């Protein structure tokens, strides 16, 4: 009898991987992705009405995930730090009338790939070595024939240029 998942667990099973990937695509590391995914489902077990339509449930979850990642980046922007109350009552996304709106979780990936193509060769190369091939700074410097310090400066400048090229993401 205890083996039959309840309504909430069915929601969890249906969405945990999707929510995780959505969040991971925006924060780029697993410890924070786990943290934010847990936050989303803590909010859900507390507030989500599991009797809503599946489309509404998905829309609700992804909007909470969207807000969670926006809050995460706010910490990096040094905006006023938000307490648990911030992510609490007013944090629940408004019900937008029930039109399901599941965010594609490859939006961020498409954007960065497009950005890479617009960068000068040296900038694109240093980012490819560091991010796609996961080379260390020392190895990147060796491959590119520059010093470690210059490799760090190059990757810094490349990211700055790319950030200037890119439109701010939605979270």
């Amino acid at each position, binding site marked *: 009898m205890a083996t039959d998942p*309840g309504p909430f667990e069915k929601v969890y099973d249906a969405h945990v991987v999707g929510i995780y990937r959505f969040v991971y695509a*925006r924060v*780029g590391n697993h410890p924070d992705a786990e943290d934010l*995914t*847990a936050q989303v489902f803590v909010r859900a077990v*507390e507030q989500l009405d599991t009797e809503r339509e599946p489309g509404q449930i998905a829309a609700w979850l992804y909007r909470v995930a969207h807000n969670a990642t926006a809050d995460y980046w706010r910490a990096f922007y040094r905006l006023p730090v938000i307490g648990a109350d911030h992510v609490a009552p007013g944090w629940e996304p408004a019900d937008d009338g029930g039109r399901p709106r599941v965010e594609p979780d490859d939006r961020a990936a498409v954007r960065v790939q497009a950005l890479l193509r617009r960068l000068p060769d040296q900038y694109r190369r240093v980012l490819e070595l560091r991010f796609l091939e996961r080379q260390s700074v020392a190895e990147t410097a060796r491959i590119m024939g520059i010093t470690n310090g210059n490799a760090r400066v190059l990757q810094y400048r490349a990211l700055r240029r790319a950030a200037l090229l890119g439109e701010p993401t939605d979270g």
Partner: protein
Amino acid sequence: MADDERRDEAARFDGYLEALLGEGRPSPESVADRDEAEMARLAAELAASAQAPAGTEPDPAFVEQLRRRMREADAGITAVRTPPPVRSQPAPAGTSRWRLSRRDVLRAGMGAAAGLAAGLVGITLRERSEDGEPLGGTAPLVAGEGYWAEVAAMDELPDGTAIRFSTAAFDGFVVNDGGTVRALSSVCTHVGCTLHFRPDWQDLRCTWHGASFDLAGRLASGRRAWRATGAYRGDASAYPIELPDLVRPRVKVENERVWVWTAQA
């Protein structure tokens, strides 16, 4: 020299990238301004897209662990909302036996929620709401029977140490904080993970997400508190939000023995 400055900022920002690309938890401390925050976000998205698709999957152990916690939370919430007949003793007139909202329970920690659902007695949540009122009022949250449980001897608990204890209804630590003995829940008020005592930091640390509580049960790794005091030596960036205090049961020391007020199971 401008070049030296550029080199310094590039080296500092590389701290963010090293953590990100090393599958660690990057810290906002490596990010100096809004421009660098945009760079950090771009780097995070780039790192994620480079891992797709297989590397973007959650660890199955994490998924199972979170599922168990959610199941317990869901059961605890249901139990609190629909109380089982724990004891035949009627609640005193004018008091509500079950007065926690779902939200209160979650903020108190899911482990605590399970304890409450099992009839936890005599524990007052320390958390205060916006207007300064303790959640659930100052009365014990649940009326009923409790007892003093002996959990440690004072000679086992010198200054600056903590001892883990477990009663049928409650898991926690007794700590000796400069001569003051306290009992604290061992359940993190974030998602209900178990805290661990770190003697070198004099804190209770959640290994799951890095929250850290001081020996009074207050969040010690909150950036606001850390910035305000400048005193905390822990990793303040690891948990950049606020959390409720740990639940603190009543404690007493008699005849060099430490007792904690706890519920009948």
